[in-house]
């Protein structure tokens, strides 16, 4: 019986151990994340160009629009 209580208690405490690293960022804690250097794409124009080349050369359509023929002219 005692063993069972221990097992249930440890099951209840398990999420706290497992989720320990999954810290939730609260809305007021996003100061550093909001900085420009934290963006995935540093420069908007460079990102746009890279995107264009990617979808033209790779003919990868999903998500970015229509795939190109490889000429980079669309």
């Amino acid at each position, binding site marked *: 019986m005692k063993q*069972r209580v221990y*097992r*249930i*208690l440890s*099951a*209840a*405490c*398990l*999420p*706290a151990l497992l*989720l320990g690293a999954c810290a939730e960022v*609260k*809305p*007021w*804690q*996003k*100061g*550093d994340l*909001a*900085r420009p250097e934290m963006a995935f794409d540093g420069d908007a124009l460079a990102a746009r160009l890279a995107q264009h080349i990617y979808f033209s050369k790779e003919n990868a359509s999903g998500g970015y629009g229509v795939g190109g023929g490889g000429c980079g002219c669309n």
Partner: protein
Amino acid sequence: MQPRKSGATLLAALALGVAAYCSDAGAAAVGQGAPEFELPGAGGAVRLSALRGKVVYVDFWASWCSPCKQSFPWLNEMQARYGAQGLEIVGINVDARRSDADQFLLQVPARFKLAFDARGDTPSRYAAKGMPTSFLIGRDGTIVATHVGFRVDDKGRFEEEIRRALGVN
């Protein structure tokens, strides 16, 4: 004890643990009393209970939040227009670094009460959902309205809520 039943108990305990870990207890909501705070301000300490009897508009803002920047001229306007009728706007800054807030205030002046909470204890107790989040607190200390975000289109509606809380028609 059959293994199946004990498994279900374990699962329930696990779910309880997850719920306890993720719960957001004590959120401030419309109709409830506004949680008390005492914070350092631009001109001395700012305490909510000291403003009892006034209509208090608590606005959580940060220097990196652009809707906050848009809201400041409107907040200044509201403070100027309804200050005499008993409106007190309290802008609680949540920047981790005070210098960021000071930099912001140089660009966007605030003509209302300011308070600083770098630790984020107050927005946590109010359970602010986004930036900015504001709470309109009636003369009796009860929250009468709350908004997340600021859009220019919302100005009229927010002002109407302030007027209603003040009893101005």
